[in-house]
């Protein structure tokens, strides 16, 4: 079964250009709002503002390049062999997203101190291993043991040996 290459749309590139331009604009505005000191002719806002200007120009180049399909600044390859490969298989976005959301929840639980580090880490590790891996009896047992060992080991190393006050 042959797979069709995954075609890239222009959407992400346009979004990238817009976000970079917005960041550049914020840097310019924020940088220029800082007053220079008496002894420093540039002041603390000048360099961030310059970075902002450069970002806006480069973001403009990305947007222009995307809109016109012109290759701007892509011809610098002195060495070949490491070019980005055109993906031939769809990426598993949902899996990565699920893990990311779970990680956010894990950190939130630690932040809110709903459960201590030991319990939260055990639950997080076990959940991820079960979601991502085998869920039969053997897989579940391995996941639970791994989670317990991981949480216990890290808690011992950081709390007891390195004297860090874990949540």
């Amino acid at each position: 079964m042959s797979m069709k290459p995954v075609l890239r749309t222009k959407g992400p590139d346009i979004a990238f250009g817009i976000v970079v331009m917005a960041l550049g604009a914020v840097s310019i505005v924020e940088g220029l709002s800082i007053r220079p000191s008496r002894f420093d002719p540039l002041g603390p806002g000048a360099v961030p503002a310059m970075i902002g200007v450069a970002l806006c120009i480069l973001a403009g180049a990305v947007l222009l390049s995307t809109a016109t399909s012109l290759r701007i600044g892509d011809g610098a390859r002195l060495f070949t062999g490491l070019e980005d490969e055109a993906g031939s298989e769809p990426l598993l976005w949902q899996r990565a997203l699920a893990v990311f959301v779970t990680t956010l929840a894990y950190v939130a639980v630690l932040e809110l101190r709903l459960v201590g580090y030991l319990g939260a880490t055990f639950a997080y590790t076990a959940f991820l291993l079960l979601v991502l891996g085998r869920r039969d009896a053997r897989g579940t047992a391995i996941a639970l043991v791994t989670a317990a060992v991981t949480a216990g080991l890290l808690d011992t190393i950081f709390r007891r040996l390195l004297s860090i006050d874990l949540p």
Partner: protein
Amino acid sequence: MSLAEAFIAVLQPLPFWVLSLGVLLGIIVGALPGMTGGMLMALALPFTYYMTDANAITLLIGMYVGGISGGLITATLMRIPGEPSSVMTTLDGYPLARAGQPGRALGLGISASVVGGGLSWIALVLLSPPLAKLGLQFGPFENFALALLALVMISSLSRGSFVRGLIAGLLGMLVGVPGVDESSGTMRFTFGIDALAGGFNLLPVILGIFALSQVFADLMAPDKPAMRVAADRRGILISLRDYVDHGWNMLRSGLIGIFMGIMPGVGASIGSIAAYTTARNLSKTPEKFGKGSEEGIVASETANNATSGGTLIPVITLGLPGGFTDAVLLAALMIHNLQPGPHFFANNTRIVHTIMASHLLAHVVMFAIMVVASLWIVRLMEIPKQYIATMVLVLCVIGAFALNGRLFDVWVMLAFGAVGLALEYVRAPLAPFAIGLILGPMAEGQFRSAMMMSEGSLAPLVTRPISLTLLIATLALFAWPFWRERHLRRAKITG
């Protein structure tokens, strides 16, 4: 501390144990697809807080050397390059292993790696002092021009588009802006967030951009069943005759690797490709390349290890990181209050010599471990991907937290993980981001000092010979992609 004393110091039980541990972990991680030596170094950073500066650097150098070398195990026995720098090894290592000589294929790669490392160590010892002496002549204008050159060079040479590379570099610089400005004490770019008063800490940003985003990228990749060649150790120790037969290839590939290592942004992968291509072009039997050529394995593995010493030269003499791994090394130095830069070599001879001694000894340890344990290490590939990803995530969270004991840094790490993934998605290379992150504050500080010295005049940038030379090189590198595109377009039009 002299170099000889540094060797003796690293050979003491604790430092040697630390070095060996670093090499072993580096080899394992280097062999694991989806994990890199640089990622391991980033994960190890929090632990180095509790070590002496010398032991911390010894550990990281061990991981660095192990990481570059370990990729050849899976490249040879499974046709999976554990590290990007072992891609070329798969082309000939795997066919040779499949042809019934897995031990010899591994042996050639391991021996070539040691020779490459040894050659690059000689370059490191011989080239660093004169370059460091040159660096001492640098003032603020030269340092600023140097930072500019590094940023443009890495954007120009690393993978991905030049413009996107520059954007990544500037974004990295911008990350260094928030917090109290060191020169004036003014608070800037904190947007009312108190936790940002001290700025972004380096470690959470590095962990997020490089470790976390890599884990998510790896999780997005579809799972593929791996095929492993049944192997034994027969032929893993190659003969003296083999060293002689491959001597010229090793020397040439080593020199290519060293040169590629010195250039910011090029690194082990391209060094390996360049050496492999040269070896094929100069070979009497080019038709064997890709079908189990011994020359191909030797060229690729000599070169990728040779970049390790080459890349350390600008790091210890000028404070210039050539890529992400060097950025982590510099971050480790900063954590231990060692300020990288042109004065680093002169002011920190002890650490410089520790780096040099660790680099050579790490290759010796790597040789021993690889010869003895390669066949065991390859079995670790049976560990499911989700276990590795979960462990890395848990380590990232606790590593970022351990820095200051605050969860704000963990949120920062998660945010930068998303940023890293987004940058990868839009094909913006991450190496320039690392360079911008590390060099940004230095570049700004030097630029402002220069402006204070010259009372706001930019003229010294072009009247001082070194800064002018660096500036011309920067402009040439900047103009290169645009000139090349124009040239290609014209060539296309004229047929």
